[in-house]
């Protein structure tokens, strides 16, 4: 293979940058058409939505619950470890709760969701594209954006915040198990300290808002990559990888911005 000259490399870099901006534009147009387009949805949007809620939300429950449990337990363990050197073991409850509600809950759930449900969505839509199912729908007169994409998009918007709440509850419960039953933290002070320092508006709601933002971004990326991919098996696998990578980076980047906005004004 011929080695590329510096000039060529720079040109390729510029081209890549333009492609990124182009993709962003294309994905925005795509999103607007899915949400506000006037295409025919065919038969029963609610039925489709329920089906997608099941495959996107319910099927992700296992990984979310198990992860939440383990993360909560580890938080309690490590937290107890560190806090006991300051004599503040009783604060382990609020530490677990605040960490989960503000950060780990929304972020970890979103990352797991991107990996499990996001990549599945991309692969499914990409597969439909490559077997011309999307074209068939068009020819029959049903808009695939409304029939295939929209239910999946809304299922993601609804599922991820719910999954995040479940993750936090399971994590706190796991942390409570470890702290109270195993490490001997006093039951009363565990919960009392937690209740005193966890504010509904500041912590629970902010965590929920974060998860809603993440839900929007992760699902959007997942369905767009599937819709936009090269209709070959290579193209689909590349699109799946892109979904996981882009969605994860977006979640982490947005988390920083949101945290700064929400908790930055000390």
């Amino acid at each position, binding site marked *: 293979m011929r080695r590329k000259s510096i000039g060529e490399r720079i040109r390729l870099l510029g081209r890549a940058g333009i492609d990124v901006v182009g993709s962003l534009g294309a994905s925005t147009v795509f999103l607007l058409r899915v949400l506000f387009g006037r295409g025919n949805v065919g038969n029963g949007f609610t*039925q489709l939505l*329920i*089906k997608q*809620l*099941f495959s996107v*939300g*319910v099927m992700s*429950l296992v990984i979310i619950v198990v992860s939440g449990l383990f993360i909560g337990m580890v938080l309690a363990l490590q937290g107890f470890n560190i806090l006991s050197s300051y004599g503040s073991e009783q604060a382990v409850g609020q530490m677990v*709760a605040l960490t989960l*509600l503000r950060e780990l809950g929304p972020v970890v759930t979103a990352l797991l969701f991107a990996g499990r449900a996001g990549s599945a969505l991309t692969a499914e839509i990409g597969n439909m594209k490559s077997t011309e199912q999307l074209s068939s729908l068009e020819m029959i007169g049903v808009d695939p954006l409304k029939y295939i994409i929209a239910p999946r998009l809304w299922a993601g918007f*609804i*599922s991820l*915040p*719910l*999954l995040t*709440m*479940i993750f*936090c*509850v399971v994590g*706190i419960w796991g942390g409570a198990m470890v702290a109270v039953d195993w490490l001997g933290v006093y039951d009363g002070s565990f*919960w009392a300290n*937690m*209740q*005193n*320092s*966890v*504010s*509904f*508006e500041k*912590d*629970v709601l902010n965590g*929920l808002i974060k998860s809603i933002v993440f839900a929007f971004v992760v699902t959007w990326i997942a369905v767009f990559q599937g819709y936009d991919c090269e209709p070959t098996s290579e193209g689909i696998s590349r699109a799946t990888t892109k979904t996981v990578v882009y969605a994860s980076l977006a979640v982490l980047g947005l988390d920083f911005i949101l945290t700064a906005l929400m908790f930055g004004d000390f």
Partner: protein
Amino acid sequence: MQNRTLEIGVGLFLLAGLLALLLLALRVSGLTVGAGQDTYKLYANFDNLAGLTVRAKVTMAGVGIGKVTAIDLDRDTFTGRVTMELEKRVDNLPVDSTASILTAGLLGEKYIGISVGGDDQLLKDGGTIHDTQSSLVLEDLIGKFLINSVNKDSK
């Protein structure tokens, strides 16, 4: 049919999510229901408000009776003016009650504690608590302690 299981599954999922949210609201963050009770306003001026934030608790005898809704600088007296909203049912505070800024735990948040005086006259909506005790600043405390111990030594 397959549809039935699907719908039940989704329904349970939605319920679980909402239940989780409810649990987080009530058990984890201690949100009190019925927070839309009638309230009345009281003001208090402090020399030093360090650490007190809006939405901090206002308590009496350790029981929560309201919260701080605004903090401003009083330009005329150069003190910090705190606006508190207290529950209407606690409307029998004497005019010489004291408002102190206390700390929850050793390094915890600041809140306002009210202790009653003995006057016959009661505070009404829009009234001001005049007897106030400012926030304890750690450096002042240490300073006082050092001066005290120097005094003791020199005796």
